[in-house]
């Protein structure tokens, strides 16, 4: 089966130089931040693929490139066989856009505060001319609001009249308004309270079952990812260090970083557990370590790790695993 979304060697470099005048006076060269350094993955139709990572891992940058909000510095994104970059005509590009939507992290910033909810939800319908006539559009908006668990009458309200969870429902209704098939969810619940988070996660799952949606889920919360994803990619400083089906990743993690993360998460299932002390902090992404980015914090690092970037093979980018120096398994068993 062909993958629905294919991401090939995606790269993104940001220019973080000081202004020209400062550079001349302070004799500083241009400085670049490599936010994403060659990321490759694919997502099958109807699947939930998750990217997890801490701050600076580049997961949100990947999300924005996949939906087309950010131009990649290199690499390609292909949706259902159509490359995003080479979309020949404006019409073709617009056809592709209709099929991809996004749910943002902060439901307080993702809805225009001056617009009523029905106008917000109907905007994609009008932009893609999916329904003709005001009556048909109004009926469709009501249907969408009911779909996400709101009342059609709620359309007359402004976003500030809703709670965070309800706003996120509105954002989901907007994402569904264009009949999108692929939805990128960038930390969809991290701004919400846990009881509301559960409502939204359940809603996302129900919608996936009913509409056959494909999700790319971006999150720093391992428990959420564990609950939602079929496959998971772990990112560290712009690279994917491990990709595995959810069960495998949590049952027998391979990369030392994945193990450290799993061990570090405060979790209700592990009350009273003694934890391995976590070593070090994430380095500054402007000047990442050479070789494997994780080597300064890795208990298994050797000279090769400090020199060579490990390729992603058999779902993991780690010399120790490739060389057989390290067996997959939870940190406790290492």
């Amino acid at each position: 089966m062909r993958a629905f979304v294919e991401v090939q060697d995606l790269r993104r470099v940001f220019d973080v130089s000081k202004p020209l005048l400062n550079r001349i006076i302070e004799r500083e060269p241009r400085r670049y931040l490599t936010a994403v350094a060659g990321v490759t993955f694919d997502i099958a139709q109807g699947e939930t693929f998750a990217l997890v990572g801490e701050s600076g891992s580049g997961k949100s940058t990947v999300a924005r490139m996949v939906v087309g909000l950010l131009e990649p510095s290199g690499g390609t994104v292909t949706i259902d066989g159509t490359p995003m970059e080479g979309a020949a005509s404006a019409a073709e590009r617009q056809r592709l856009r209709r099929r991809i939507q996004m749910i943002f992290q902060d439901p307080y910033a993702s809805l225009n505060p001056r617009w009523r909810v029905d106008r917000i939800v109907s905007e994609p319908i009008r932009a893609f001319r999916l329904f003709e006539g005001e009556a048909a559009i109004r009926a469709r908006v009501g249907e969408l609001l009911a779909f996400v668990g709101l009342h059609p009458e709620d359309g007359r309200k402004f976003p500030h009249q809703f709670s965070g969870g309800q706003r996120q429902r509105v954002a989901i209704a907007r994402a569904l308004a264009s009949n999108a098939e692929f939805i990128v969810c960038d930390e969809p619940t991290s701004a919400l309270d846990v009881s509301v988070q559960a409502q939204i996660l359940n809603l996302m799952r129900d919608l996936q079952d009913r509409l056959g949606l494909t999700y790319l889920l971006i999150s720093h919360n391992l428990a959420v990812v564990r609950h939602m994803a079929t496959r998971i990619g772990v990112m560290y400083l712009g690279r994917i260090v491990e990709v595995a089906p959810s069960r495998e990743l949590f049952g027998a993690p391979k990369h030392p970083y994945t193990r450290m993360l799993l061990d570090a998460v405060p979790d209700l299932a592990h009350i009273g557990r003694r934890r391995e002390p976590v070593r070090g902090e994430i380095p500054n992404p402007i000047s990442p370590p050479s070789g494997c980015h994780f080597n300064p914090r890795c208990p298994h690092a050797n000279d090769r790790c400090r020199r060579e970037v490990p390729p992603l093979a058999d779902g993991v980018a780690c010399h120790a695993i490739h060389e057989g120096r390290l067996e997959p398994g939870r940190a406790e068993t290492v």
Partner: protein
Amino acid sequence: MTTPVLSVQDLTVEFVTRRATLRALDRVSFEIGPGEVLGVVGESGAGKSVTGAAVIGLVDPPGRIAGGEVRLSGERIDNLPAEQLRRVRGKRIGMIFQDPLTSLNPLFRIGDQLVETITTHTDLSASAARQRALALLTEVGISAPERRIDSYPHQFSGGMRQRVVIALALCAEPELVIADEPTTALDVSVQAQIITVLKRLCRDHGTAVMLVTHDMGVIGETADRVAVMYAGRVIEVGAVTDVVRHPLHPYAQGLMGAIPTLADTAERLASIPGSMPRLSAIPPGCPFNPRCPYAYAPCTTIRPELKPPGLRAPAVPGRKVACHLYDPALAPEAAAA
């Protein structure tokens, strides 16, 4: 029984606005013993941060303490004059906030800030205070403190800054530390380090901790006991394992079921319908009754008091719940009989 380090009795905080008087805290009571970590959890709007602020007398106007009392080692502190209260805050209560930059002055070296706090609140000389500061920095896990003590806050990473804040909170040897979302702004791997440091230090120094957070995972790993808040009230208190594994209050049950865990295999998460009421529209009786699957007649009229369960649950010392289901006098079967 030993005197608790912190004892809060019927604490009520009100916000007077143009339209109405809003009750942000409604007769909140709890105690923290020496060396104990009490987790205060709740979702946004539950009043957990107001509780922390009210204990140290830092409720911002138009809020005011409208009733109840706060005792620190048996001595009332909620009615102290501002100047005396300020001294209590510096010396006997340490504070750790979510954003370390609110506790650190960006214009002073961290060493100077530590030394100043120590000399203000103890009899130590400046050089002894500096030795003490170095020892504390080592204790919070900052390697080579001699090299870093003269750095400015911006030269530290987020996790390191929070370590410095912990050192600052502990340097006057306070009886109580109030930590308000101390790890929320940090990455997962750093969060674990900070929790470990906070827990170890408070155990070593015998300091009581009031840990305010929305993250049940952090509570589970750090706290000895936990108080669950809802709509400005404490609705359940107990040992952390009891409350997490066998919550009594229907809200606490819903909350625990809603949290995905790493051991998760469930298809669906339990979820509580609706959301927390606004302060201006707290329902009468039990504030949770409109969302509660077990609600019955008395829940909409009679306010449930926080007391040990008399029904349906074993009486464990220190376990209290504010729910009619556990009250022999008001439970549905009592009404039937």
